[in-house]
């Protein structure tokens, strides 16, 4: 899926992980989130994994299927967010993603192979966009991820292109 308006040059994108979408649905604010994201001029992107976690997986569980259908209808089918696959062809992007994986594994006291690349798809997507000279706003809730992303991307001089926003900042604006 491409940008919503191809005539406008997008210089900033917002990339979400699953937490904001699930939290908005938990608070029954999915419609408001959809309107908020559509109203905003910044394009919102999620990786395929996020659609899996918020729609495909819960849809197969009867207790959560209603939420999954609501998210699908209001967030994905309404084009409030676009789904994009991360690109792993760039060696530097892979190195950075692997460093973040190592950092998370170390923090949680697990082996690095237990943290898969797919778990960090939204970070890879952010790197893809920053490499295209776009500014990226990353929205998620995890403190562990926050510390690792900040420390590694700052040391690789991505700090001026990256802004990390906690989901509470967006939830409060709904």
């Amino acid at each position: 899926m491409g940008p919503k308006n191809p005539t406008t040059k997008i210089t900033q994108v917002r990339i979400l992980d699953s937490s904001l979408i699930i939290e908005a649905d938990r608070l029954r604010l999915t419609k408001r989130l959809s309107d908020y994201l559509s109203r905003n001029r910044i394009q919102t992107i999620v990786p395929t994994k996020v659609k899996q976690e918020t729609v495909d997986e819960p849809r197969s569980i009867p207790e959560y299927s209603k939420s999954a259908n609501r998210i699908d209808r209001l967030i994905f089918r309404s084009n409030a967010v676009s789904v994009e696959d991360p690109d792993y062809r760039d060696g530097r992007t892979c190195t950075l993603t692997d460093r973040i994986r190592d950092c998370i594994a170390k923090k949680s006291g697990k082996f690095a192979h237990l943290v898969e690349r797919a778990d960090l798809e939204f970070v890879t997507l952010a790197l893809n966009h920053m490499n295209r000279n776009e500014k990226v706003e990353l929205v998620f809730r995890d403190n562990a991820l926050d510390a690792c992303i900040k420390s590694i991307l700052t040391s690789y001089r991505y700090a001026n292109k990256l802004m990390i926003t906690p989901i509470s900042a967006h939830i409060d604006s709904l």
Partner: protein
Amino acid sequence: MDIMSSKIEPATMERLLPQLHGQSAKILHYLAIHGKANPNEISVALALPRSSVYKTVRDLIGTRLVSAHQGVKTGERGRVGSEVLTTDFRIVVENLPGVPRLEITPKNVAVFDLLGKSSGKLFVERHGMGKFARFMGLYEDYANGKMPAFMIAKELDAERFEVELLIGDTEGLTRPMKRSVKKWDRRIQQRKLHKLGSLTAV
């Protein structure tokens, strides 16, 4: 707190368990996050009526889940002479059916409270109480910034959706709803106006 260093009577446990739910859980969780606070701060931060905070705090002190330190030193928040509350306990429940060991601490007391909410009930229904007890332990790591939510989901072989719902409900416990804050603010404002009115009348 050493109240749980030895085996306790079932009667004491019965008295203790209700203290780990609802408003008491909110206050314990708030104290766990902030280290210490006085009842007034808690009342403002959680948008709870002061009288009910004082009552709950009295009950918590009675069950020794909260300690009160008299006399505020200079530089600490709160009025000099007002109580400063702290909490530090570890309740270990062993040999429950399907749960070999369940540890309740101030940091995960809010998760324990989820057993009364739909997200917690659904999780237990799908994965059993054993996994819920494991989630309680993992949530402490999550809150301390050691483990991200996707790792918890993997550890428990659960869906990310379920884990995010549990985390959202846990964190929502000590985040007052916008509406209640507004209502609280309105009430304070009305009280101030009322005072002003009476002053003008004088």
